[in-house]
């Protein structure tokens, strides 16, 4: 441990801690625009400067390690003066468009400008005239609003290993763009939206689809159907001041009805359905000699995109199951429409997701129109949902909890934990156990799947055999797992795992790129805890125990993995070029 003082307060920190970390420990707030708790310091903004001893020099708190006996001053008139000047510099190259910006009232630059009471910037406004890049229709890059902090590039390269974003040009012309200055849609971008989740300003935001949803809600001919993803319910509250991780499922249902949705379903039901199909697929592969293993989950659209671009040799290992939202969409326009006597062409399905990539998933291939129409018509992020609730004049604190609509609404604990890393694996193991042994495991919690460790491994004994599994989240962790699998495959030896879950975002969907801003590991853990609580308090904890799931098979689909299931609930994959130019 290292002893130092910050503004005269003694502080003791582990070796290697930065001044910024040490300051937090003694409740000293040092402002910064580029440092994010998830990421290494880029040292780009120059706001977090501090002074050590009586030195004339100033050092960046974000990347200066605390040394023994350091006497650190975080605020004095000169430091504040310099910070203010740097802030004014940054503002001079930032458009004054707060009122029409996607980050209005939720912007780190705006907050800092407010804190510093900047009323006027003397410097010329030198915002370059640069075009938007909305080519992915999932995220929108506005280079004019970029303060080149480098967070998006760090998360894209170091955490996600996608390398879609980089800096181009230099000096004052420096901006973020895909390498080679191509568009995002032409780049390796997998639309995970982690760039938008980490951006301090409005330079990268989700592609906003709310208007088309309002238009359809207004259309008396349309029967509008909503579905709510697992991770949304424990994050939406952050936009309304609820404690992080509060489960707001019932309030969300109520809000969606008040907005005008004719039916409110739950993606968790789709998750249960996914488990039925995927566990069937797994058990078949696991018990059939010579099958390709490990089976790899495919609920995450960024992961699917990433795999098709970078790891297409693993296609045989991929589960053919569609994601839960796609399954709900397909059934809403077939099973539900049939039962309710609705014209599927007049059913408009909106999914509320923690995710920007889902906007792409709903049109990724013709198989996403298995009902004859696009199965899901619009996919909105948690952030868009929050805005829609606010626009609707709903007092989200006061609104009474409601129940979902029947047929595609009720869910089990297994479905709800899909929103946390390891949740799909845990849910699948519960049902696979049942499918192999005929009964549920005595303990349905598989702790080895839980937590924020980047790669989690474990095994579970099912009928005397060890089923080996691994869970990775954050695409940067995938390579390690796949290398192990490939080595065994190439050597012709037993695969290291039978079953692998991958989620593109750190923490899984609770940390999704469409979730409320300001995510840290602390937030991810609290959101996940909300889901595990939902699982524990539920009536059913295994997907196959959901009576509505049983009903859909009995009344409509037939057997899991059967012909109708295959047509509506399964998809296929193809190798795609990393660059489209």
């Amino acid at each position: 441990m290292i002893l130092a003082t910050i503004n005269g307060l003694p502080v003791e920190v582990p070796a290697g801690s930065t001044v910024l970390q040490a300051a937090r420990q003694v409740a000293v707030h040092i402002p910064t625009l580029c440092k994010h708790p998830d990421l290494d310091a880029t040292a780009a903004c120059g706001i977090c400067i501090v002074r050590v001893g009586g030195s004339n020099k100033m050092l960046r708190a974000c990347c200066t390690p605390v040394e023994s006996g350091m006497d650190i001053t975080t605020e004095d008139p000169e430091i504040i003066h310099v910070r203010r000047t740097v802030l004014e510099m940054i503002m001079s190259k930032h458009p004054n468009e707060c009122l029409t910006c996607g980050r209005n009232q939720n912007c780190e630059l705006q907050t800092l400008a407010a804190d510093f009471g900047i009323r006027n910037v003397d410097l010329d406004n030198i915002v370059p005239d640069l075009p938007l890049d909305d080519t992915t229709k999932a995220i929108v890059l506005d280079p004019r609003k970029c303060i080149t902090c480098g967070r998006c590039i760090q998360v894209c390269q170091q955490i996600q290993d996608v390398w879609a974003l980089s800096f181009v040009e230099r000096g004052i012309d420096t901006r973020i763009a895909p390498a080679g200055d191509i568009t995002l849609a032409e780049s390796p971008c997998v639309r995970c939206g982690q760039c938008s989740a980490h951006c301090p300003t409005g330079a990268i935001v989700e592609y906003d689809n709310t208007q088309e949803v309002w238009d359809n809600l207004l259309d008396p001919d349309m029967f509008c159907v909503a579905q709510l993803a697992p991770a949304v319910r424990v994050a939406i509250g952050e936009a309304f001041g609820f404690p992080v991780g509060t489960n707001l499922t019932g309030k969300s249902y109520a809000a969606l009805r008040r907005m005008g949705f004719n039916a409110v379903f739950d993606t968790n039901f789709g998750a249960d359905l996914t488990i039925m199909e995927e566990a069937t697929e797994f058990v078949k592969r696991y018990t059939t000699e010579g099958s390709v293993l490990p089976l790899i989950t495919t609920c995450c659209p960024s992961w699917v995109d990433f795999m098709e671009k970078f790891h297409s040799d693993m296609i045989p290992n991929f589960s053919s199951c569609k994601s839960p939202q796609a399954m709900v969409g397909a059934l809403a326009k077939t099973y539900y429409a049939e039962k309710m006597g609705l014209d599927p062409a007049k059913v408009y399905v909106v999914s509320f997701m923690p995710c920007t990539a889902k906007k792409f998933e709903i049109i990724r291939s013709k198989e996403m129109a298995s009902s004859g129409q696009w199965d899901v018509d619009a996919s909105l992020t948690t952030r868009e949902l929050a805005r829609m609730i606010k626009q609707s004049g709903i007092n989200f604190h006061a609104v009474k909890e409601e129940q979902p609509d029947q047929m595609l609404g009720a869910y089990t604990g297994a479905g709800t934990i899909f929103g946390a890393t390891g949740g799909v694996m845990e849910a699948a193991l519960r049902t696979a156990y049942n499918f192999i042994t005929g009964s549920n495991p005595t303990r349905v919690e598989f702790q080895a799947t839980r937590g924020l460790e980047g790669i989690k491994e474990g095994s579970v004994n099912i009928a005397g055999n060890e089923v080996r599994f691994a869970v990775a989240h954050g695409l940067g962790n995938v390579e390690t797992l796949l290398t192990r699998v490939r080595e065994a495959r190439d050597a012709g030896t037993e695969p290291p795992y039978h079953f692998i879950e991958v989620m593109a975002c750190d923490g899984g969907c609770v940390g999704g790129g469409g979730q409320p801003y300001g995510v840290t590991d602390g937030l991810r853990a609290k959101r996940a805890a909300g889901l595990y609580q939902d699982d524990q308090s539920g009536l059913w904890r295994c997907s196959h125990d959901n009576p509505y799931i049983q009903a859909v098979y009995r009344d409509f689909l037939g057997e899991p993995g059967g012909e109708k299931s295959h047509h509506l609930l399964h998809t296929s994959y193809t190798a795609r070029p990393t660059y489209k130019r």
Partner: protein
Amino acid sequence: MARLTIADLQARAAAPKPAPDKPVIRVGMSTCGLAAGAEPVFNALTEEAAARKVELRVARTGCAGMCSMEPLVEVQVPGQAAVMFGEVTPEFARSIIAAMAAGKPLPAESRAPSIAQLARIAGEPVGTGDEPIQYRIVMRNCGVIDPEEIDEYMDRGGYQSLAKVLSTMSPEDVIEEMKTAGLRGRGGAGFPAWLKWKLTRESVGDEHIIVCNGDEGDPGAYMDRSVLEGDPHAVLEGMLIGGYVIGAKQGYFYIRAEYPLAIQRIEKALRQARANGLLGNNILGTDFSFNVEVRLGAGAFVCGEETALIASLEGKRGTPTPRPPYPSVKGLWGQPTMINNVESLANISQIMLHGAEWFSKIGVGRSSGTKVFAVTGQVKHAGLVEIPMGVTLRQVVEGICGGSASDTPIKAVQTGGPSGGLIPASELDTPITYEDLIKLGSFMGSGGMIVMDENDDIVELSKFYLKFCVEESCGKCAPCRIGGTQMLRVLTKIADGNGTEADIATIRRLARAMQKASLCGLGQGAPNPVLSALRYFEPEFRGRLASGKN
């Protein structure tokens, strides 16, 4: 070619130097010479000598320092003092040969001072009478030997230092010697070289790496280029000793791609060194094995900054990263890396050969040894000068370089490049040391020295330097990227006669933020030329304000 051993080199040192048996004519063919037309001069000399059947050797050599007098041709007739000719044309070159063929005296016109008249040379006997101010340690072979002939380097004691170190000194001995010598980094900042070597040696890593920083980029500065072009083996020998000291097996020359001749000569030197057993496995028959590769800089000034240089070497965008960790702890590929400037490395062999005591007595106080400057601008004799530190600016500008090139008096001298500052003529008696220059608001820098006379416009000049930094900003950090651009806008406004009193305050405010909050030296130093101009020449700025206009 045979691989040399320590014994071979010792024998070579002991053997008497063979006296030249025929005249040698040397043509300065570094970039400065070539630009002035040395190639046709060289061809004229060889053709004419062949035509007239004169027995002599025409040789290429590096920059002798008197760049304004290029093409330089030195005629060395055995038994006579060397004669230097300046601004030689092919016609004049033919007349030299004609005179020699006819047994007549060499032409009396176009004479220039010989190197012996210009400078003392390290390791050579001291003459009698008035000693020249210049003292050539780094440039000892520049303009003297053919840089493409390793034998000429070795004939002047080349690689004796390496042999001495490898056969008689431990790495710790070398570090101790460096400490006594007091050599400080010649790239600009003046960090003690011995300490950098010690820290890198003591860092733990899979391998240790040494890098020669040849990414010289200050406007008007070309010292390193001239040394790489004129005496590449001297730099390589310094790197070999450094590699031995820190326990490196791999070294890199990082040279800017705009220096094709320097690159070509270093590559040739590496080939020759390999063929002679001076590079590769078991150097000079010892356990020391060391390889060197050349890497080219792609034209970004900031890549001269250590951490940006490392990023560039790794194939990444050349932007600085926070220090610590320092390269000596975690540098190229995460390994302990020692980055030394060309001039620093060129000093090493001489320190080891002649001893730390000898070196420490040259210069003054904590600024020991010599410093090479590229003196350009309004002086009579622009070129490279190497002076013991402690010599005054006036001795360089008015003494060595002959003072103002026009009738107009000298107004100021700029040192330290785009991070340096203006020094007014009133301060010319300041001795050139690291500390004294900082006191004046400038700094040593890598060795650019631009001289201005009273006709030069200080406001425009500060704009020039600031514009340079703005264009070379990597764009990574806000204070440099935006602060520089905004300051340039304000300065341009003033220069255009539209400035106000408040604009001068804005410049000072932006400058402070850039100095305090920029990540690397480029941003921190970028306001210096403007600030020092304001410090000494504020009335010139005020005179340009809108309100100051008549």
